[in-house]
């Protein structure tokens, strides 16, 4: 009888312990859940006077988002998204966003739409230049310059003779472009399909048909790897942002590009990219704002931050060509 009682007390004790454990677990889970929900509501940006929404071009996105990253603090919040220049303007002209990133000037039709919806005083801010550079190895002695149709034939997957505006289909060896060039296959290096640079190249060289771009190249989002690849031997060719190409002219060479419009081959430089003569691989990048958004202190502060030395450093860091002082002054006077 006494033994039985002892066992019962042990059982009871252990059961009590188990219930205690369950209670603690329930309390813990509840606390974590409640604090999680609380944190979610405390820390997500709330719509209010301190919020600026930017949308538009994915090419300009790295610039505005890197600005926002340093500009944002507890009192001011700039959020940046991308849906393409056109998609962004559609939202901007419906009044859904405060500013729009654009990799081309606004169209008249888009201006009209804005006016219809009462979005007026559209102001264009130049933020940077985008210059895509074609590079070959230092030991490549045969390529002096390339035409856009030669570039197209190097990078297309289309094998039909009518490809590249009738210039011909895909080439895989240097001597297929010019009989005096080496009978060696061309090793290609370029950005991955996630990259805005890829889209831009497709748009400028391959008639804006993504499927025409070859698969047979080494793709990397890391420009360093591309430089390393192009530098590895004489038969390589690659494309990436201008800023990165000029930094590595010890091992690679930038090729002047002939747009076949009678102006001859143009070398990408700060000047030729800026004045638009480096075609079709150079273009200006913009941010657009309306009078209503420009009237807000936070928008003004954000733009002013972008045009500081630090803001322009961030532009260079993203691989684009930053503005010179005169250009910056010309933008700053547009801010009220």
């Amino acid at each position, binding site marked *: 009888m006494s033994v039985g009682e002892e066992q019962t007390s042990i059982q009871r004790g252990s059961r009590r312990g188990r219930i205690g454990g369950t209670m603690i677990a329930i309390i813990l889970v509840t606390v974590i859940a409640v604090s999680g929900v609380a944190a979610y509501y405390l820390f997500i940006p709330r719509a209010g006077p301190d919020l600026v929404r930017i949308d538009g071009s994915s090419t300009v996105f790295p610039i505005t988002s890197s600005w926002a990253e340093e500009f944002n603090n507890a009192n001011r919040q700039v959020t940046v998204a991308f849906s393409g220049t056109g998609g962004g303007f559609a939202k901007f002209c419906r009044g859904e966003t405060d500013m729009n990133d654009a990799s081309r000037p606004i169209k008249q039709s888009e201006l009209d739409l804005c006016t219809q919806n009462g979005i007026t005083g559209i102001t264009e801010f130049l933020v940077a230049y985008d210059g895509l550079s074609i590079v070959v190895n230092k030991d490549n002695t045969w390529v002096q310059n390339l035409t856009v149709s030669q570039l197209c034939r190097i990078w297309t997957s289309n094998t039909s003779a009518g490809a590249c505006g009738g210039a011909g289909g895909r080439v895989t060896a240097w001597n297929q472009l010019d009989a005096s060039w080496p009978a060696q296959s061309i090793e290609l290096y370029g950005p*991955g399909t996630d990259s805005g640079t890829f889209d831009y190249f497709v748009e400028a060289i391959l008639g804006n048909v993504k499927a025409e771009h070859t698969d047979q*190249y080494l*793709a990397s989002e890391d420009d360093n790897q591309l430089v390393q690849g192009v530098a*590895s031997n004489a038969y390589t060719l690659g494309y990436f942002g201008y800023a990165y190409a000029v930094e590595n002219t010890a091992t690679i060479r930038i090729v002047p590009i002939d747009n076949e419009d009678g102006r001859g081959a143009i070398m990408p430089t700060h000047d030729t990219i800026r004045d638009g003569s480096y075609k079709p691989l150079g273009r200006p990048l913009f941010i657009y704002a309306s009078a209503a958004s420009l009237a807000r202190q936070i928008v003004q502060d954000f733009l002013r931050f972008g045009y500081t030395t630090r803001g322009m450093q961030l532009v260079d860091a993203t691989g684009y060509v930053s503005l010179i002082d005169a250009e910056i002054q010309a933008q700053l006077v547009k801010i009220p």
Partner: protein
Amino acid sequence: MGRETARARKVLASLEPKWVWERGETLVRVVLFLAAAFAVLVTLAIFLALIFDAVAFFEVVNPIDFYTGTVWSPDIREVFGVLPLLAGTLIIAGGACLIGIPLGLSAAIYLREYAPARVREVVKPVLEVLAGIPTIVYGLFALLAVAPLLRVWFGASFFNGANAIIVIGILIIPLVSSLSEDALTAVPVDLRDGALALGATKLEATTRVLLPAALSGVGSSFILAFSRAVGETMIVLIVAGQNTDLTFNIFGQMTTLAGWAAKRTTGDVAVGETVYLALFAVGFTLFVVTLLLNLASDALRARFREAYE
């Protein structure tokens, strides 16, 4: 055996209060069972994680097209024919085995049969160190030391399949040598001594008696090495390149199932996109290939097992 354990248990039970002993025993059994079950559960979880998205992929892309297609262009043209990746995998893993298996087996035979004790004491630990080198280090070695040589000797691309073949071949040497050596060790000394006593040379004793007797273990080490080479990711990722044009030119760029998946995973992939699902289909294919190889290894071991008691 069972009876002895029971007797031992009875003796122990008489020494200690019964409930303490039983609790301790149960606890240990439960902990050990959980440890064993954990590995099985994780394998199952990996398989399930793969299968759901792989099935979702095969709802978008016909599996027949996937396994017979010769064009792999998941991002640009959105064509999913896995043969170029499968071919690249078999070429690189097969080539690596052509290098790693002869060297590994030779090392095992040398260490087991020929090496003086002092050489053995040095070489064996070095081989084991080779097995412990992280694959990224092999990859850097390939880029810095092997790639320039291949460039000079064969006019290879900077990134090329041959480089991966050579370095993965080196990578699997310790795997082959240590497993083969274990298999050779398991053959009773009497067999070899018998052969030698009958007048066989050392080479004859090794090739005619020892190796056939150790066939199951040695063969399964080959398959495991191939399986290891099939799954090798880091080396392929950084030295082999990315071309998927179904070529047998090992001096050009090529990639494997694992290499493509690793490359694509580090990019920007939106959940639910076909490319995202393709990652799981490729992972699933890789899983099945290595699973089949491991099963084959087990089957081989069971089939040709010579039991010496």
